[in-house]
């Protein structure tokens, strides 16, 4: 075991993993995180705590992780290189290890231009792939980026993101391979709506044997309304929302129910795709729906390993 985390144990035992997102608040109340933890703890194996998501300032990811951990929920610490240089990243990794956090998701981060401080100076000292490699070296060789020794263990299950839908399509798998060789133990993908494209991407992943070197968790974003579907189709970079999905939401008498149905159909299709080891649900501002989706997808109860 690299970290001994629940997520690692479930994936390594060959079981289908379920994770979800629990974003911290734009404020200091611990209750928001705790409420999401309560809602999701029985239906998920670990919860991702986002890191100034969409470049909007929120309670720090590490604090959110500690709040979850205190209530017995396993967190995944999301960390972006947008806001921290190599010193801060390594310092936070050590702090997270000391606080008992065992999963980390290494990301570039949404560009600061999209957030609520659009003229902030982006750090981008190292990139996400270099970050993955840095954490792996800290864990496996007990060494900082500069080669100096680290005292104590740095036991992390290292995650990375992959977007099968961004351009250039034929390059996406090359980049995934780089993340895997840098040390990504698990991958959480961008939300999937365009199943044919995802299936094509997964074939390229399997052709390179990457599904056997890392655990791929397929991303899902439950859609609440036709407005949300349209917004994601037109405004969210790197998301591919086919017209058919928007039409289904537009025609639905009960849009929320249709959104759940689309999500459940996607999960059923994903179960048939070779090389998928789990799902990751990003129900932004709709965390209440996650347990129902997981229940109706036949993924309850969660395994105890």
């Amino acid at each position, binding site marked *: 075991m690299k970290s001994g985390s629940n997520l690692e144990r479930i994936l390594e035992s060959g079981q289908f993993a379920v994770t979800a997102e629990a974003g911290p608040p734009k404020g200091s109340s611990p209750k928001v995180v705790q409420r999401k933890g309560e809602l999701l703890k029985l239906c998920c194996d670990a919860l991702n705590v986002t890191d100034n998501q969409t470049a909007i300032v929120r309670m720090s990811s590490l604090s959110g992780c500690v709040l979850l951990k205190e209530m017995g929920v396993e967190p995944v610490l999301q960390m972006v290189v947008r806001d921290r240089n190599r010193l801060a990243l390594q310092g936070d990794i050590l702090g997270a290890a000391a606080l008992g956090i065992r999963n980390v998701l290494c990301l*570039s981060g949404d*560009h600061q231009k999209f957030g609520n401080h659009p003229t902030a100076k*982006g750090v981008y000292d190292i990139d996400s792939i270099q970050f993955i490699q840095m954490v792996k070296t800290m864990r496996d060789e007990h060494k900082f980026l500069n080669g100096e020794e680290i005292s104590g263990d740095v036991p992390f299950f290292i995650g990375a993101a992959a977007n099968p839908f961004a351009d250039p399509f034929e390059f996406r798998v090359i980049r995934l*391979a*780089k993340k895997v060789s840098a040390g990504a133990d698990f991958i959480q993908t*961008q939300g999937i709506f365009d199943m044919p494209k995802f299936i094509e991407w997964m074939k390229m992943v399997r052709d390179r044997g990457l599904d056997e070197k890392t655990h791929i968790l397929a991303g899902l974003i439950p859609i609440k309304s036709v407005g949300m579907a349209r917004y994601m189709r037109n405004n969210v*970079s*790197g998301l591919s929302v086919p017209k058919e999905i928007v039409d289904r939401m537009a025609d639905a008498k009960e849009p929320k129910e249709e959104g759940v149905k689309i999500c459940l159909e996607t999960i059923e299709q994903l179960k048939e795709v070779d090389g998928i080891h789990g799902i990751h649900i990003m129900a932004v501002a709709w965390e209440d729906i996650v347990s129902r989706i997981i229940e109706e997808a036949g993924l309850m109860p969660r395994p105890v390993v």
Partner: protein
Amino acid sequence: MIIAEQKPLAEIQDMVAPYRKILLVGCGTCMTFCSAGGPEQVNELAGTLLSENKNKVIEKTTIPRQCAVKFIDRLENKVGDHEAILSMACGNGVQAVASRFPDKPVLPALNTQFIGVEKEPGVWTENCLACGDCILWRTGGICPVTRCAKSLLNGACGGASGGKCEVSKDCPCAWQEIYHALKRLNMLHYLKEKPQVKDWPIHPGRVVREDLRGEVLS
């Protein structure tokens, strides 16, 4: 070439407000090529400032470069009579002039933007951050440090769409361009490598060439 833009007129007027006699100096190289601070812009700015305030006395001149002492020396005879120098150089030129005439206020009329090229008439784009460690040989002649909004050395990120950067529909994704350039050059293998983290330069930079310092040293 260094690219700059003229400051908002109100800011320039604020800067020059305390002074009556002003030496307005254009720059004959980059600032002339990017139409920000050449002789033409010197004439325009002087005209505008005079039309707004008839009491001002503005002497106009343009030197080939404000970043070289041998050209700045040409201002020596003109500076004396003036209360301030309004420079239409990049930040580099403004500072070189200020350091040559430490007893005169030297005011910047421009905002320096970047090292770049003219993409089409009236459009300039940034190409080089002067990072001190050029990797263009492995990126198809396209700089990701400068032209990728996140300076990724292992791009492209997940935000590019339709060949454009998520930051602006007017901005091509540098990594998409790199991918196509390397494919064209049959050099795609560079994309599979993982470049080491970058040694960012310490600011302020200083380049020392011992081979050129022989006379100083001896």
